[in-house]
Every structure is written in C-alpha cells, then in structure tokens.
C-alpha cells in the first residue's frame, strides 16, 4: 500500500478525479458531518440575495477533504505527516475537480524517509482552486 522511496523520483506525478458535477447535496452532507453550517454553502437565497454571490459554493474544507483522499490513496493510510493548502478559487455546484500530487523531494528525518509533495486541485476550466503541499512517510 505505502510508497517505496526506491520507486519514487522527483517530478513523479499522481492524479485523481475527485468529483464530477459536484452536487449541492454533497455540500449539505459535508456541512452536517463537519458542523460548518455557514449558509453560504447550502442556502441559495441567503447567498444570492444577502451575500451577493452567484450561488452557494463548497466549503474550502470539502475540497481539501476530497483532495486528501487523493493523497491517502497515493501515500497509503496513516502515512501523512503534513498537509496544508491555500484556497485559491471558489468551488461551485456542478464543478468537476481533479487533483494532482507531484514529488518535490525525498528527505530523511530521524531515521524516517519522507516524500514531499506539491498538491494542486483544478476545476473543469483549468482554474486552480486549491494549492498546497503534503509530506508523508514512505518505505525504503
């Protein structure tokens, strides 16, 4: 399951489709699970009439969570040591998202071998919606 340093090199790329045609219901599902009930994510009337956005939009943390699946599917369970992102554009219902991890470096710390990854998620128009990094323990 886990990655091996001997099979990795800088520049290696792993990609995964996260979602096609993101549904409002999934955003509602994330609101309920995470406890973030900000109406901007689920309440079309509030969001368009009061907040001034064209429609509800996804929690940044939903995109980070979906992108996290790409990472854990790649590096294996219980292997991440760091994961951080900036939310660079909003994600709206109907969006298709694809995430990409690129091997930036292989390092060693306290006897553990670590892979450093650049992380990026883009929408169907090629706009980056999330930009970040991750670090994970890998086998020798």
């Amino acid at each position, binding site marked *: 399951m886990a990655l091996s340093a001997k099979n990795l090199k800088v520049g290696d790329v792993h990609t995964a489709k996260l979602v096609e045609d993101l549904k409002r219901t999934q955003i509602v599902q994330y609101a309920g699970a995470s406890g973030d009930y900000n109406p901007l994510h689920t309440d079309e009337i509030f969001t368009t009439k009061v907040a001034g956005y064209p429609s509800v939009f996804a929690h*940044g943390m939903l995109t980070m969570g*979906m992108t996290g699946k790409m990472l854990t599917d790649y590096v294996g369970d219980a292997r991440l040591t760091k994961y951080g992102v900036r939310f660079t554009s909003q994600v709206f219902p109907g969006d298709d998202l694809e995430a990409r991890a690129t091997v930036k470096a292989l390092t060693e710390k306290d006897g553990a071998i670590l892979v450093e990854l650049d992380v990026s998620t883009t929408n169907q128009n090629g706009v980056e919606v999330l930009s970040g990094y991750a670090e994970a323990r890998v086998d020798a």
Partner: protein
Amino acid sequence: MATKTFPVEASHILMFARSVGDDNRVYADADYAKTTEAGGIIAPPTFAQASAQFDPDYFLRPKIGQPWFGSGKNPTGITRSAEGGGGGGGGGGGLHAEQHFEYHRQLKAGDVLTATTFPGKTWEKEGRRSGKLVFSESVTEYRDQNGDLVITARGVGVRTERPVEQK
C-alpha cells in the same frame, strides 16, 4: 474558540469520510481496519476540522433559541446594521483562506482530544477580485487523553471588502 473535548468516534468518521467522497474501508470497517497498517479505524486527514461540532460557541451552527442569519421567511433571519453591503464575508465571519495540518501521530477512533486555540498574526492585502482583504490566523493544538500532541492545525481566515468577483 473555546477549549473543548472532542471525542473521536467511529460513526462520526464514517459520516465525515462519506461527505468527502472517500470510500476507504479504513474509515468504515473495524474488522478490515484491524488488518491494515493503521491497526484500527483512523480519521481522514482533515477530520480535525469537525471539532467544530464540539465547540459550544461555534458561530456557524444554529443554536437553540438564538437568531440565525440564514434564510427563513426572509433572505436572512437577522436584521443587520450596515456592514458594507453584505460583504464577501456573507455575515458569517469571512472565508477560509488557508488550512495547514501537522500530524504528530495518526488520529484514531476512540481518541478523546482537547483543543486549545491560540490567535496568530493578522495582515492586510489589496485583492484584485474582492477589494481590501484582512487575514487572520489561528493555531489549534489537539492533544489526546494522555496530553500528547496529535495534530497541530493552523487556519487562516479572510474578510473581504466585497464578494469575490468570479473569473
């Protein structure tokens, strides 16, 4: 954010994993999870964010008997004083700009975390698509039942002068 106790429960992990579209059985099936390197049900990487459920003061959850700013009869349930035309913050404390996690060990079902939040830096920037941006940072340390640090989380929120223009 108030310091609070955050019991990490398997059923909550299951619902959270579903919501982010993650069908990995290590989040859902205890018998399977035992056979993996994780050794039992673990939490997905961003699960600590769900600690909001256990923050009694969390302002983005409707509270019994208190006004709520989402729509009901009217587009908002709260009559607010002028706040710059509704602003990109949408009356709810702004948008999430960044989130960072450092995992000191894997978070598992059965852990009971205590979260302590420290305020961080604040800074301003002129944004192309939303006017003046005010950023503020906070750091939350999640410690387990033994007092050991499990996750350090750093979040950055942003308040925008006006709603973000769409590209």
